[in-house]
């Protein structure tokens, strides 16, 4: 079994503590907002100067309320709006407790590559380097391997770095892995996966935590996991 994109986002959301100040990147991370536990106050931050919002329903759209992904949002009671200098003071000054980012690759030492695939493209960096360099807990949410089946967790990044040694935890469709000074530590595996199977799809050595467990998925959500025949979700 492997997690869907929603399943990865769900799993990340479970680990955000009460009172967390969180910036969500594009892709899988942007789905985390859907699964925030209702019993915790968690404050979403967006680069364009919003703190304390949720995704908007279609009938709530306000032309002046979009997040950095240009998705419509609504402000919660207690929200605040500010300029880009204050917004990046929050990011770079270590005031945000968490950011969840997508990745092309993560290295065993926590190096993150998520901003540029090839020199042929138009490059764009946005706030990725500020988030990676500044936020206290940089978590990555991504598929474990590329659509071609190549591991995205590697000894050394081949793509250009976003920031060195910044990632603290990796959530994939197969596993939850901590980046520690002693290397990668496997904390959880998907139902039906073994640590050995995860290691085979990982490009760097994993230490299996003594309390490594099989993650449990809730009944109340549908579509969090695939019982895949052809392997993990791409």
């Amino acid at each position, binding site marked *: 079994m492997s997690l869907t994109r929603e399943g990865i986002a769900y799993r990340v959301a479970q680990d955000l503590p009460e009172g967390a100040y969180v910036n969500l990147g594009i892709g899988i991370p942007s789905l985390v907002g859907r699964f925030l536990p209702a019993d915790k106050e968690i404050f979403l931050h967006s680069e364009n*100067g919003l703190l304390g919002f949720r995704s908007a329903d279609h009938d709530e759209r306000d032309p002046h309320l*979009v997040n950095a992904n*240009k998705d419509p949002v609504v402000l919660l009671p207690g929200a605040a709006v500010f300029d880009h200098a204050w917004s*990046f003071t929050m990011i770079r000054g270590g005031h945000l407790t968490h950011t969840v980012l997508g990745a092309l690759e993560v290295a065993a030492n926590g190096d993150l590559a998520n901003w540029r695939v090839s020199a042929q493209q*138009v490059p*764009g960096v*946005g*706030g990725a380097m500020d988030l990676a360099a500044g936020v206290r807990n940089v978590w990555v949410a991504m598929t474990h391997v590329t659509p071609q089946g190549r591991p995205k967790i590697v000894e050394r990044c081949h793509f250009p770095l976003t*920031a060195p040694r910044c990632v603290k935890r990796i959530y994939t469709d197969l596993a939850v892995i901590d980046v520690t000074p002693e290397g990668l530590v496997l904390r959880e595996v998907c139902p039906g996966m073994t640590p050995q199977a995860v290691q085979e799809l990982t490009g760097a050595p994993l230490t299996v935590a003594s309390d490594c467990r099989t993650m449990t998925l809730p009944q109340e959500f549908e579509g969090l996991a695939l019982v895949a025949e052809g392997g993990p979700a791409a």
Partner: protein
Amino acid sequence: MVNKIVADCDAAVADLKDGMTIMVGGFGDPGAPNQLLDAVRRRGIRDLVIIANGAGSEDIGLGGMMKDGLVRKLICSFPNYPQAWAFRERYLKGEVELELVPQGTLAERIRAGGAGLGGFYTPTAVGTDLAQGKEVRTINGRQYVFETALYADVALIKAAKGDRLGNLRYRYAMRNFNPLMASAAALVIAEVDEVVPVGSLPPDDVHTPGIFVDRVVLYQA
């Protein structure tokens, strides 16, 4: 009596010239001074250096200026989205230069220009391609990249409300880069959705004090 209100966007940008460096506010659509940008496009001035977060969208505002080839160089953080096709086409043909800057560094360089600072050290981009060729300094055990201030000939910004003294308020996500750019150009022109009487903005809630703003022009619905 001080009166910074200008009749229309064409009058507001009438003295802009070829080769100028222009800051453009906005993050996506909110806070983008699109009517001012359309007026610049109508003037057809060229060889411009643009400082903005993005590269414009579709055939609108900055996107339209890109389409018409008015821009020589773009200093921005995020030009790689589908709607920025006008920039992309010219960039891939080598017709426009790009200086890519991390978004927080871009905001801080603009703020530094407005605040009279020469430059600053940021941890962002240390150990990456975007630090190449830049001074790296260790301060209190952490590495930082040196970045210089940005200052422009003109800033084109957008606000929700403005008065004849140039005091401005933004609404929600309109704010973004606008207050910073208002501080960092020799000539600052604000497009506003509403002109309000002096004294109607509570002093504690003015987002951009009038000292930073030279011209205010009403958005034409």
